[in-house]
């Protein structure tokens, strides 16, 4: 890819503060992404298509869809995040940007955190915004849609953060895509269980506070620990290449 589309990271001096460096990485990732808009659209199209498969493949009955809708949307969102993870480090790895990032004086895990936040803003957040439309299409009621959006809003950053570890581990490997899914899906299962559990509890009229608190705990755990694991994995993958 040419340098016009993918500007270099410019934070070489150690006088750049940590926050400024994170901002720089974040801004660059956003700029690069918006120069290749199709890449942004693809996970969203995938999300919509997977959701479409269920009414056509299983049953278009309102009773089935309104019961399973939240689960379908969650699974589709999970798969779509999984699909987009390959982009998180791949291009930077191919053109050497990632090595420069590792060499920066700022702690790598914070720069990765910035990259992951950018990744979430570009994939997870659009999914959440698209959810109400699809929620109406699978006949969820208004309350369920609101709760579903809330769980996705808390849950998709967790997916991005855990996914960053997998993406870093499988960087530069043969058949990285399948391997990435194999490594990451087991770790996604708890998030999925509590995400759909929240909506199910809300549909039964139970209190969702405890569920949301647990999801928040997942988010905090992932936010504080995942960047460290991803940074360690990234260093290993780069030394391997």
């Amino acid at each position: 890819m040419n340098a016009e589309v993918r500007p270099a990271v410019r934070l070489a001096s150690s006088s750049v503060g940590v926050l400024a460096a994170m901002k720089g990485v974040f801004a660059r990732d956003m700029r690069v992404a918006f120069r290749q808009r199709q890449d942004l659209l693809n996970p969203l199209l995938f999300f919509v298509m997977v959701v479409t498969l269920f009414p056509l493949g299983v049953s278009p009955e309102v009773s089935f869809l309104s019961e399973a809708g939240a689960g379908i949307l969650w699974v589709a969102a999970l798969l779509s995040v999984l699909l987009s993870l390959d982009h998180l480090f791949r291009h930077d790895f191919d053109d050497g940007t990632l090595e420069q990032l590792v060499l920066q004086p700022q702690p790598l895990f914070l720069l990765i955190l910035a990259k992951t936040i950018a990744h979430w803003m570009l994939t997870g957040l659009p999914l959440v915004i698209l959810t109400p439309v699809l929620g109406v299409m699978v006949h969820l009621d208004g309350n369920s849609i609101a709760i579903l959006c809330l769980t996705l809003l808390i849950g998709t950053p967790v997916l991005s953060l855990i996914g960053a570890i997998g993406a870093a581990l499988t960087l530069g490997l043969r058949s990285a895509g399948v391997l990435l899914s194999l490594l990451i899906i087991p770790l996604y299962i708890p998030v999925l269980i509590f995400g759909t559990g929240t909506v199910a509890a809300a549909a039964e009229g139970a209190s969702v506070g405890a569920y949301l608190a647990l999801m928040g705990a997942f988010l905090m755990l992932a936010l504080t620990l995942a960047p460290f694991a991803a940074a360690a994995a990234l260093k290993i993958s780069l030394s391997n290449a």
Partner: protein
Amino acid sequence: MWQFFHKLGSPKWFFGISTRFMPWLLAGGILLLMSGVIWGLAFAPKDYLQGNSYRIIFIHVPTAFMAQSVYIMMASAALVTLVWRMKLADVFVKAVAPVGLVLTFLALFTGAVWGKPTWGTWWIWDARLTSMLILLFLYGGVIALDRAINDEKSAARAVAVLVLVGVVNIPIIKYSVEWWNTLHQPATFKLTEKPSMPAEMWVPLLLSVLGLYLIFGWLACVRMQTEILSREQRTRWVKEFVMKGRV
């Protein structure tokens, strides 16, 4: 103390010392496992509720116990790999991951066989069962990642990161039967309380758990020795070992 620590990192030292331990591990393991299983299957009293079908507990609990225990051991070794770069630690992780996979599969399988007569179904999506299934996937992922990376050192360290990340699942399995209302019964053994079953049942169970532990130790040694031989094949002591048959 430090000398011991350094020795522990030496594959040659481990190879020599484990050869001496292995017969004892195997003999003790077979003795304990056989006596536990035979006592449990033939002589322990019938359960008043489940009849004879409960006797699969003497296979199920040891394998399920070991499946989690092996993962914890792997995780400790993974930490050692990342922190101290000790060669033996990553040999251990690589050697026991398939053993853990098989143990987890056996635990799920015997659980299914036990579930059919008592719960009336082979499988339910219960918290304990699901989290054990996740454990199976984690073992599979560890093995797959290890095979995918050609360079031995990077493979070991990448696998170590993955194993440590997967550790979050262990407390979920452990406490799933207490946190959620599940069909699966709570833990059989607890450190702090007396077992809720009579001694004629828990003593043979304990024997088979200990026996399986020893057999696992033996198996881990065998697999580690094989791995060490293939990794150190260019060193002089391995060549001498192959020629003379001893270290």
